[in-house]
């Protein structure tokens, strides 16, 4: 790293980098992940139909990112490669989110410390367990910090405000519809009427605790419509009873 010759304290360098990264991330939209009865739900505000923030990494592992798209998409691809090669050279059962999260943390931390510009990203690696107790959520920050979270995880710009809202409505063992309602309400925040998110502005996927090998499934806008646009009142204690059924067709 070339400097003009003036001394800069390491603390200052790191703080500047951290500020830079946080600003980049704060500009973007948010994302939530939460555990529910049948698996893990991931929901992001995403107006694009084709550029995904949430993707499949492996049989029981999903990736989600916020911030600069090209930066976290490159990490996504690296994660798929890591998982597929590990599964090939060892076995499918040996691929887990924890080791992938650690690999991400190392790489991201390395870039933060040694490169000119930190990655303006925040990512999540989620793994669905055979039971709720086995679910894992790893939240990795721009500087390589890894946090192992329970219940739910929030990434992106307004993470604190969204987390607070989710704290109120989240319950362990929710149905899909209740979990989706809690997630969307949290993402909506104070927005009212036309400002509230519609199905087309959401990217939603789940890791389903099914007997099939691949548990990742995207929820189409058509499936979301009845669940998102019908007014689900945000309740602090009990989420409203789900009226629409989740579509059970496996993804082609």
């Amino acid at each position, binding site marked *: 790293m070339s400097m003009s010759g003036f001394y800069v304290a390491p603390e200052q360098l790191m703080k500047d980098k951290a500020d830079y990264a946080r600003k980049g991330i704060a500009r973007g939209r948010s994302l939530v992940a939460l555990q529910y009865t049948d698996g893990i739900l991931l929901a992001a505000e995403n107006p694009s139909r084709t550029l995904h923030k949430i993707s499949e990494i492996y049989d029981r592992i999903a990736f989600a990112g916020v911030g600069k798209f090209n930066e976290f998409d490159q*990490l996504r*691809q*690296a994660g798929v490669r890591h998982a597929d090669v590990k599964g090939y050279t060892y076995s499918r059962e040996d691929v887990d989110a924890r080791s992938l999260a650690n690999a991400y943390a190392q790489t991201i931390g390395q870039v933060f410390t040694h490169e000119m510009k930190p990655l303006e990203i925040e990512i999540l690696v989620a793994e669905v367990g055979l039971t709720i107790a086995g679910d894992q959520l790893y939240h990795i920050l721009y500087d390589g910090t890894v946090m192992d979270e329970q219940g739910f995880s929030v990434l992106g710009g307004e993470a604190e405000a969204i987390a607070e809202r989710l704290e109120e409505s989240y319950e362990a063992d929710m149905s899909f519809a209740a979990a989706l309602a809690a997630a969307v309400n949290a993402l909506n925040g104070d927005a009212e009427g036309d400002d509230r998110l519609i199905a087309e502005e959401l990217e939603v996927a789940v890791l389903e605790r099914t007997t099939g090998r691949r548990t990742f499934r995207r929820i189409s806008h058509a499936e979301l419509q009845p669940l998102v646009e019908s007014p689900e009142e945000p309740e602090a204690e009990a989420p409203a009873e789900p009226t629409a059924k989740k579509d059970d067709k496996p993804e082609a």
Partner: protein
Amino acid sequence: MNLPIFPPEDSPGSNFPELLERLGHTLPVPEGGMSQEFDTHATTIVAATYADGVLMASDRRATRGHSISDRTIEKVHPADKYSGISISGSAAFGMEMIRTFQLTLEHYEKIEGKHLSMEGKANQLSGLIRSNLGMAMQGFAVAPIFAGFDLNRGVGRIFAYDVLGGRSEKDDFHADGSGSITAGPVIKVGWKPGMSKEEVIELAVSGLYEAADDDAATGGPDVVRGIYPMVATITADGYHRVPDDEVAERFNALIARKTEQGHRP
């Protein structure tokens, strides 16, 4: 394990075999020959199109020299939801090729976010066979059949390969392996366009029975152990293995017919 990050200009993209090579996971081709007796061989495989899609079937025997090394080997496997791959020739390299092929298709889908076309899959398999050329020239060739239901065209398609990776599409049927010199003509004589599922299974059963009858390396129905050739269908509903008891029933009926007719050598 490290995270495989590549600069954009030097990335293997969605190509799984190239990724393996770049990370140093491919085996070098040893020099010098090796007696083929050390290699386990897998034999008769067949595929045939019918009204709903395509059928794939194989016997269950693997041989090493003159010995039977495996009585229950399955040579037909799903490649992905709508296609299947079967191998004849070297069992070790064949099974490895199936595994790599399955991973190649899944890897592409995850990196790109969409499935490969049928042509794309067929081409990928050509590449895999070609990369086995070193081994093929030493005598460990693998000749697969790739078949599947083409969602765009709404029909079953079959791709046959030679050991060099040369590919040709078959509208009707194909057989490969040491028993194919018998299974092939049997299926050829019985095949007609638009067969029903029952008819095409019956035809495959016939072909495999006759192949086992003529070829020492092909296993026929083993009624003592209850091991029968395997059959799978690939249609708009995807790859499905025909249950063993249904296959057993067909073979038992065939055996009963032949016994009654006084089937003589």
